[in-house]
């Protein structure tokens, strides 16, 4: 399959919805296939790449930090960017600026950037296909 440019819009906040698990699985497949990927992180999804997320232990379950091995979405975003690069693709991950400001999550992991819905329009115009994953 020839390289494609695919856009995915996300709206769910971290740690709240199975939609994000599925979205990251779809993005992972696209990255492994070497496609160029655009992600527009809107509304709650603007916090996915927030750099100050921290893993934590789970004292209720008696697990320390390493044993808990808590996944953070910021690490998943970084891993997605790395996977795409390994396979000859690239990820342009845009965090909605107003959504970011509202939530105070303006510090992003490297390789993602601030933008606006105008970026989503540009993504759609330049993409072979687009998938919007809305909140429920």
């Amino acid at each position: 399959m020839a390289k494609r440019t695919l856009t995915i819009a996300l709206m769910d906040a971290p740690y709240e919805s199975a939609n994000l698990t599925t979205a990251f699985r779809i993005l992972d497949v696209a990255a492994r296939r070497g496609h160029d990927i655009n992600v527009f992180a809107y509304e709650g999804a603007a916090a996915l790449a927030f750099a100050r997320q921290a893993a934590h232990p789970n004292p209720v379950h008696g697990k320390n930090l390493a044993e808990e091995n808590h996944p953070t979405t910021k690490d998943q975003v970084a891993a997605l960017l790395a996977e795409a690069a390994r396979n000859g693709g690239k990820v342009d991950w845009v965090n909605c600026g107003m959504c970011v400001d509202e939530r105070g999550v303006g510090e992003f992991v490297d390789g993602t950037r601030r933008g606006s819905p105008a970026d989503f329009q540009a993504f759609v115009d330049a993409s072979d296909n687009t998938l919007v994953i809305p909140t429920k």
Partner: protein
Amino acid sequence: MISYLLIESRDPFESNDVPYYYELAKALREAGNEVTLFLVQNGVLAARPSAPAAALSALGQSGVKVLADEFSLRERGIARLAEGIAAAAIDVVVDHLEAGSRTLWH
């Protein structure tokens, strides 16, 4: 012929919108389009032999390809599927995006 991928993430016992999405798949097929309905997350609960599965089996008979995400099935301990529904990897979504299918999420 236009190709559609309809992704259903909701359980019909949870949302009354789900039957309308099945109807959309049926109508698109009857209009001469190629239609795949991909069940994911709680959407796969309808793939068990059960009352809602009859609607999915009927879709299959009408020419809609009905698939259920194998990861979501494993998460929920579902090993047996109703007639006309097949398990599939999440790769199906990227296959359709690559091919230019009109891809909708519910």
